[in-house]
């Protein structure tokens, strides 16, 4: 095999480098515009020729970069060499790879070219440890083969449990149901901030109009212009809903999940197919999410919390496992892929209704921080901010009503609610890095406590907090967590 020699990226990667640094190039051209024009005239050539020279220089620079960028796939590790002045060599042993992510634009499909990103659990950089901007698909296949070979050995060393061994040969597949994807896209809460912003603009516009027209123009025109603004506003709202709908559809189009050899592979996207591979044992926790509308529709989203930042950039770097699934199907669909997932939703323990008061009080107090200055500075218009108070109260009630917890089979299940969306976390005991039991001095009288659990998420830490649970239960969970 020739794979032990340093290999280059596909030559088209030069274009990728240039495109990726186009802002630098544009900036360079703008700041050097004066000097180049001056210098060109000085040595007696057309200024345009001078610019052509600059562009050739930029292209040359990236070509040299391309020539210096090589990678080696040997038996033990992947090595990436890059840099012109500062030489950089990154070595990644295959067993340390957390995720392999590849993205492919539709126009690159015929050429079998794709972008490959490889991540380990290292915290040092925010970007992936290895990025191969444009390589043939077989490179990934080779790396995956090497990793699989190695991780098989590693699993044996770590004394895999019988179930894990059994599932080694099981392959499972899932593809998103187009109808469900539709429901998912329609129930996204992502449009609400846009609508909020539009309403604010509408308010401003309405405020501006009377000032200008009130004396000179009749009420009819004011009335009409209000109608026009109304229509425009509604149009923009419809457009933004359509936009957010299309965005979700293109992102999760033909979402597929595949698992074999204890590796989980997701694939998604319409114009750009994005795929992530991760060993199931490396998943730190499962997160089952629902916003309030999806709660009514009885659908949920399942994501994996992982130790690398592969996955959706826009979704907190969580790895999407099931974008949309009916509530009663969640764990039935999930268990073939993640063997340690619970078999069904557990009946969680929940808070005493009287405790909701604390959530409502906190949310209301927070909303006052915005409301009071608004009232003070904007008087009448500021009173609009009073609308936040009932919303905050509802949010507090929602947070209280959705708090839940349970310890089951070496896993801690925690559920909380934030901003009208509910998250349930299934966290295996071994993945909890540290935990704490917190109480204010007043809570010692009311016998309540907060429990906080820290898990690895992306390159940083994620704290999951369950608030105002009974002190006794809090201590029980804390003591359970202490068991080695």
């Amino acid at each position: 095999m020739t794979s032990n020699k340093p290999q280059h990226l596909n030559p088209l990667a030069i274009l990728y480098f240039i495109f990726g640094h186009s802002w630098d190039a544009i900036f360079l051209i703008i700041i050097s515009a004066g000097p180049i024009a001056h210098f060109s005239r000085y040595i007696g050539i057309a200024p345009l020729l001078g610019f052509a020279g600059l562009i050739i220089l930029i292209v040359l620079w990236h070509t040299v970069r391309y020539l210096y960028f090589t990678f080696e796939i040997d038996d033990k590790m992947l090595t990436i060499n890059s840099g012109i002045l500062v030489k950089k060599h990154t070595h990644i042993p295959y067993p340390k790879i957390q995720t392999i992510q590849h993205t492919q634009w539709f126009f690159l499909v015929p050429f079998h070219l794709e972008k490959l990103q490889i991540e380990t659990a290292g915290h040092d950089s925010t970007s992936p440890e290895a990025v191969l901007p444009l390589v043939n698909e077989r490179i990934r296949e080779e790396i995956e083969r090497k990793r699989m070979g190695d991780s098989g050995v590693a699993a044996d060393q770590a004394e895999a449990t019988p179930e894990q061994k059994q599932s080694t040969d099981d392959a499972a597949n899932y593809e998103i149901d187009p109808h469900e994807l539709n429901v998912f896209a329609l129930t996204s809460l992502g449009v609400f901030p846009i609508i909020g912003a539009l309403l604010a603009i509408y308010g401003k516009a309405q405020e501006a109009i009377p000032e200008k027209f009130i004396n000179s123009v009749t009420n009819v025109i004011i009335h009409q212009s209000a109608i026009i603004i109304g229509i425009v506003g509604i149009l923009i709202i419809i457009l933004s809903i359509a936009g957010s709908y299309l965005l979700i559809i293109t992102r999760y189009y033909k979402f597929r999940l595949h698992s074999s050899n204890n590796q989980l592979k997701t694939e998604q996207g319409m114009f750009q197919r994005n795929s992530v591979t991760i060993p199931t044992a490396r998943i730190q926790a499962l997160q089952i999410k629902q916003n309030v509308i999806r709660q009514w529709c009885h659908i949920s989203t399942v994501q994996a919390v992982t130790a690398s930042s592969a996955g959706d950039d826009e979704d907190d770097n969580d790895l999407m496992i099931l974008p949309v699934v009916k509530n009663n199907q969640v764990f039935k669909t999930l268990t073939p892929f993640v063997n340690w997932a619970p078999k069904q939703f557990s009946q969680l323990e929940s808070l005493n209704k009287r405790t909701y008061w604390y959530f409502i009080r906190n949310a209301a107090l927070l909303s006052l921080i915005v409301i009071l200055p608004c009232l003070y500075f904007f008087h009448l218009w500021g009173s609009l901010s009073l609308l936040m108070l009932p919303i905050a109260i509802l949010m507090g009630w929602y947070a209280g009503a959705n708090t839940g917890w349970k310890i089951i089979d070496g896993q801690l299940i925690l559920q909380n609610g934030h901003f009208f969306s509910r998250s349930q976390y299934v966290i295996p005991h071994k993945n909890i890095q540290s935990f704490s039991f917190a109480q204010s001095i007043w809570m010692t009288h009311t016998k309540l406590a907060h429990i906080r659990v820290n898990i690895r998420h992306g390159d940083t830490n994620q704290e999951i907090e369950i608030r105002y649970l009974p002190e006794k239960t809090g201590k029980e969970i804390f003591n359970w967590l202490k068991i080695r």
Partner: protein
Amino acid sequence: MNESNHLPKQIKTVWRISATIHALILVIIGIVGMVAHHFFDQQWLLYAAGFFFAAAVIDFIIEIALVPYRYSFWLYTITDDAVELRSGFIFRELVSIPIARVQDVTLSAGPILQSQKLQEVRVTTASDSHTIDGVEPEVGEELRKQIMKLAVEVGKNDV
């Protein structure tokens, strides 16, 4: 070694010295402001200097006043399999870090800590890190030994 320990008494001196240094830094910025005012004659520089002097005094008073509070309500326990940190009186928190999850321990000491023969301990897990402001060198050594002992288990349950 299973009972809760206060930080060593010397830590109060460390905190007082660092409070003084923080205040001094603010005072120096204020003095620079005054000097600049003398040369450039900009009125706002004088206000800025005044602000920094006030901040220095307030910061110093608060930090010094909080030293006994911090000392009496900050406790740590090192058991066979966990490091526990207890802090706060009004807002109480008990943090537990299983030693099996600890990735590394850093012992460090700046000039102030060195003068009091103390070391700062920073315990890092795969996700977060926790600091014990100062311990005697023997405690740091003991922690290091325990982590080495449990390192085998970490190998199995790594991220």
